[in-house]
């Protein structure tokens, strides 16, 4: 099987696009109200140890991704079953993001076009990208990243006149429960979703690199989220933030530069679709790889078409309206994602450490020898 190599930079870009993907359009951390910035920071802090665990697992078994590690340390049957579960998680996540973007386009821009049309187009594009391989997704990410940064910077610049710090007052005012709850939600969506990356990337020769990559992606992505949600909150205030399904869209609508540049929200969120598409295609790629591994096949691209159809059907039938989507995201997702984001990686980590200790000598030295040989 052809190994698809990504550079350090490409993985960091993908991580950033993945984290910002659908987060910037959705209302995240509503419980924290005006203290949303604290919730984001807390969530990032909570995610750091988890990310270190992910990186550690990958570093323990260089040249292998999560799927292969599972097979190696848990045995063929259990490992494949776990892989199937992970693939299902990626599949579901992909459907959720597809649904988010479908709903978003439907609600904000074209209420009369069926919801399914943007979804099926996005799904077909993700299918195509997956068939072309990870390198294509990574390179596309490299193209999208500067565009997104550019657009985000301009949006922020134009938003500054509308920022109202009063809306963030009073800070940290008897709302610790809300902050913690918001942080937990933010932890499961989007930060710990980066567990998906374990199915895609693998550690190369330098064992430290994984940690660096994961942390860089998390911190930069987290900073972008922090900036975006805080400024959105400062523009529209906690009440409207809670009341709307797509708060960032509402905030960008307020941009008005000299009565000429206005109503640019469509353009801004067009660019958000780049990030969303990256997230969708990465999840879909992971799902294809996971299922092909679980089914005991060597190649994954042949699964793209049937899984793409199922993905679309799944996403199209997931929720009937935006309200269901929001409720599910706030009440169910946390518990659904917990095993994949926390429990299984922790178990794998412990099992992996034990198994590697059991081997003779220090694993690090072994690996260096292998990589040089």
């Amino acid at each position, binding site marked *: 099987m052809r190994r698809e190599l990504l550079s350090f930079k490409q993985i960091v870009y993908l991580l950033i696009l993945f984290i910002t993907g659908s987060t910037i359009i959705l209302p995240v951390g509503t419980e924290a109200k005006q203290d949303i910035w604290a919730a984001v920071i807390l969530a990032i802090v909570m995610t750091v140890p988890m990310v270190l665990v992910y990186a550690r697992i990958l570093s323990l078994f260089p040249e292998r991704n999560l799927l292969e590690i599972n097979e190696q340390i848990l045995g063929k049957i259990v490992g494949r079953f776990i892989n199937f579960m992970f693939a299902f998680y990626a599949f579901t996540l992909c459907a959720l993001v597809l649904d988010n973007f479908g709903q978003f386009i439907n609600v904000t821009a*074209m209420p009369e076009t069926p919801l*399914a049309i943007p979804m*099926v187009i996005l799904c077909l594009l993700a299918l195509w990208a997956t068939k072309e391989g990870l390198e294509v997704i990574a390179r596309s990410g490299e193209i999208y990243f500067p565009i997104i940064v550019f657009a985000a910077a301009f949006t922020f610049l134009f938003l500054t006149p509308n920022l109202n710090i009063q809306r963030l007052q009073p800070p940290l005012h008897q709302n610790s429960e809300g902050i913690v709850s918001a942080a937990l939600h933010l932890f499961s969506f989007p930060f710990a979703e980066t567990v998906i990356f374990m199915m895609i990337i693998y550690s190369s020769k330098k064992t430290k690199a994984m940690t660096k990559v994961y942390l860089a992606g998390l911190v930069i992505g987290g900073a972008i989220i922090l900036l975006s949600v805080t400024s959105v909150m400062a523009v529209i205030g906690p009440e409207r933030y809670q009341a709307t399904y797509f708060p960032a869209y509402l905030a960008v609508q307020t941009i008005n530069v000299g009565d000429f540049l206005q109503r640019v929200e469509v353009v801004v969120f067009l660019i958000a679709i780049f990030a969303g598409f990256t997230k969708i295609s990465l999840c879909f790629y992971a799902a294809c790889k996971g299922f092909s591994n679980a089914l005991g096949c060597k190649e994954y691209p042949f699964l793209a*078409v*049937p899984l793409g*159809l*199922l993905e*679309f059907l799944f996403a199209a039938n997931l929720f*009937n309206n935006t309200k*269901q989507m929001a409720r599910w995201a706030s009440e169910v997702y946390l518990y659904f994602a917990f095993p994949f984001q926390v429990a299984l990686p922790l178990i794998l980590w412990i099992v992996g450490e034990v198994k590697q200790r059991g081997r003779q000598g220090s694993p690090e030295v072994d690996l260096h020898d292998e990589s040089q040989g």
Partner: protein
Amino acid sequence: MLSFQNRQELVNELEYHYFIFVLFSFFGLVEARQLYRQKQRKELAFYLFLLLPGLVFTVYMATQVGLLSIAERLDFWLGRMPQ
């Protein structure tokens, strides 16, 4: 003249299920044939096993109106009613 609203209605009327069915059937035929030729029997079996139910469900979806969503079904099974 086709106005803006008319065009939207046109898109609404466009039977996208039909489009999806035809598209994926086409892909399916091409790829299944390829897999068959390369003698990848296991892959072919999985391929058809995943694709055919999808196609059947697409047809089913096209004929149904107001299908219960998966989230609603889950709520129903778990005995939790939406607020």
